[in-house]
């Protein structure tokens, strides 16, 4: 890998940590960026250098292109990896990086642009023979929206034309809710993307969300790394993903893979990307939803079943390497599942939770991988994504993977703020999920008003009393975080910091 040896990681949280570790493995020097409240975050401590971008608000820090590119210049980084979210699907950002003589670890700006406009992408896919969901774009005003909605029928989905990641997205079940939904979607879209154009799509009830991972080098080879099923969602955010999909057989895999490769080639795609489809579980017809022109949150499950490191390949493709394998060389092995551990309250409308993660740990063991940006003592602020960690398991088959995930979640400690840990276990134990039949409506249909089990184990109550009984210091309430080290110099040195956040 020539071209670059120092890489700026333009992100935070678990993905920044994962990218920094990949840099180390490849002999690249990673540089972090951070906002003021992230000065002591794990990703900052793992990097060789770090640049403060500004205050908490993402617009003034992680989303500020000038500051990010300046940070690269200032630290001598010759390449920038955007991670996911933030600036990762911003064509202008990619273009400015390239114009600054740096390497953008991702697809060409033209490909981002072509796929970023959901309205234009729909049109383009239709003309390339990739099936798209029935819907409408170019909706200038409320009247056009009402007309299109009448044609499509209900329920329908309002999406930001410029968007992705669930932002600016609304399901509308009847004409009465259409305009308020559109207004909310516009506001979110404007805020998130600076562009309030919308598209409407038929909302397929009982559909499956299945996506194909793409890897394309700069030498004309475009391959797919099979599918991921991401049907289990709440508020259009994925919660559990698995690969392979329990719905997909070899023949459907080949068809969807070919369609995804065609979609990527249509826009001259290179590097890693994902083509999302919605699949009718009965007819097995599939429809193009959108292409995510970046690394996905759920990339680890594809890494598990393909045996390939997608982040390594992102760097190697960006450095000009050719993929040394063909489509026929690639076969999925085993079954992988990812659970997203969110700081949120599933018993209370998935309200995000903030606070101090007093204790966080996950069990070690065969086939377990945890990608996390937090640790015991991390403060979860309201400024960013509520994703705490991704818990990934890999096993020989789906049954073994489900068992492994259950035991892993049971042994995961996340104390100090509300998380979806118990809810994840409820999903994994649900017969519909176990049968591999969960659709995108699974949570709404089967766990609509989930509450923690009302029975409290006797052991838990007794443990609380034992703790109180043997706790001479339980009444002292301090915010200090004592060390694990019995002789630690920092036992009483709370949040000590000098000259941080330069």
């Amino acid at each position, binding site marked *: 890998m020539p071209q670059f040896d120092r890489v700026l990681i333009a992100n935070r949280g678990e993905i920044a940590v994962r990218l920094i570790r990949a840099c180390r493995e490849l002999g690249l020097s990673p540089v972090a960026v951070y906002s003021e409240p992230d000065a002591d975050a794990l990703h900052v401590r793992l990097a060789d250098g770090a640049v403060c971008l500004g205050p908490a608000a993402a617009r003034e820090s992680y989303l500020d292109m000038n500051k990010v590119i300046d940070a690269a210049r200032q630290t001598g980084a010759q390449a920038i990896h955007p991670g996911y979210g933030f600036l990762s699907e911003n064509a202008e950002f990619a273009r400015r990086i390239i114009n600054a003589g740096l390497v953008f670890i991702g697809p060409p700006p033209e490909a981002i642009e072509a796929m970023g406009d959901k309205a234009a992408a729909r049109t383009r896919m239709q003309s390339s023979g990739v099936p798209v969901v029935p819907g409408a774009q170019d909706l200038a005003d409320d009247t056009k929206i009402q007309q299109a909605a009448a044609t499509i029928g209900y329920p329908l989905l309002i999406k930001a034309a410029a968007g992705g990641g669930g*932002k600016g997205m609304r399901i509308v079940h009847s004409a009465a809710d259409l305009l308020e939904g559109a207004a909310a979607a516009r506001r979110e879209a404007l805020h998130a993307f600076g562009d309030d154009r919308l598209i409407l799509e038929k909302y397929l009830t009982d559909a499956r969300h299945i996506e194909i991972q793409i890897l394309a080098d700069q030498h004309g080879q475009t391959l797919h790394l099979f599918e991921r099923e991401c049907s289990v969602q709440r508020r259009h955010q994925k919660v559990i993903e698995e690969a392979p999909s329990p719905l997909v057989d070899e023949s459907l895999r080949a068809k969807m893979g070919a369609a995804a490769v065609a979609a990527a080639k249509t826009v001259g795609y290179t590097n890693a990307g994902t083509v999302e489809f919605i699949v009718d579980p009965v007819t097995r017809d599939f429809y193009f939803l959108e292409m995510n022109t970046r690394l996905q949150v759920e990339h680890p499950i594809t890494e598990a079943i393909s045996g390939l490191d997608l982040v390594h390949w992102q760097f190697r493709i960006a450095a000009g390497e050719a993929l040394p394998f063909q489509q026929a060389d690639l076969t999925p092995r085993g079954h992988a599942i990812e659970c997203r551990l969110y700081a949120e309250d599933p018993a209370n409308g998935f309200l995000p939770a903030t606070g101090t993660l007093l204790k966080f740990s996950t069990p070690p063991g065969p086939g377990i991988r945890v990608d996390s940006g937090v640790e015991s003592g991390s403060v979860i602020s309201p400024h960013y994504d509520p994703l705490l960690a991704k818990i990934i398991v890999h096993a020989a088959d789906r049954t073994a993977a489900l068992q492994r995930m259950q035991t892993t*979640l*049971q042994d995961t400690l996340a104390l100090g703020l509300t998380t979806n840990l118990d809810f994840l276990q409820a999903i994994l134990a649900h017969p519909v999920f176990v049968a591999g039949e969960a659709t995108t409506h699974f949570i709404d249909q089967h766990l609509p008003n989930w509450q923690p*089990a*009302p029975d409290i184990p006797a052991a838990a109550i007794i*443990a609380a009393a034992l703790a109180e009984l043997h706790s001479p210091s339980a009444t002292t309430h301090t915010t200090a975080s004592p060390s694990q080290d019995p002789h630690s110099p920092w036992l009483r040195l709370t949040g000590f910091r000098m000259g941080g956040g330069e």
Partner: protein
Amino acid sequence: MKFTYQINGAEHTLTLEKHPEGYRAHLGTAIYDVKLLHAKDGQLHFQLDETRHTAHLAHETPAKRWLHNAGRTLVIEKAATHRRGADTAGGSGRLTAPMPGQVRAVLVAVGNEVTAGQPLLLMEAMKMEIRIAAPHAGCITALHATEGGSVNKDDLLIEVEEIPT
């Protein structure tokens, strides 16, 4: 010794008697022989009758503990202190911020009549839009939030007075 805890909204009372081998616990009608085997780093290892159990604890405040046992995460509050929480939640017409964030849009004005479930205010936190809706039909009597402003958890946002129908 008697212990009373609030867990998931219900009250649980436990008594422990000292025994030569440990304790005897009474929980409702159930009785357990309890032996504490190991206690370190917020981890408890103990025996109830013949079975071994592990629990992990962390204190958020002296009266509020997070506890992990057998795969479940519980919040355990000392009963005496729990009432304070109920007070600060405000009356049903006093709508507070469920979490820290920014006010994106105020959709009503003082004096407006609103219906149950009507969206009154939109907040954004952690990249999510959070909708504050009217808990019942009524009249807006006070607005404490401005668009674009930051709010902390439990900040009073809007007051809605019930109108007898």
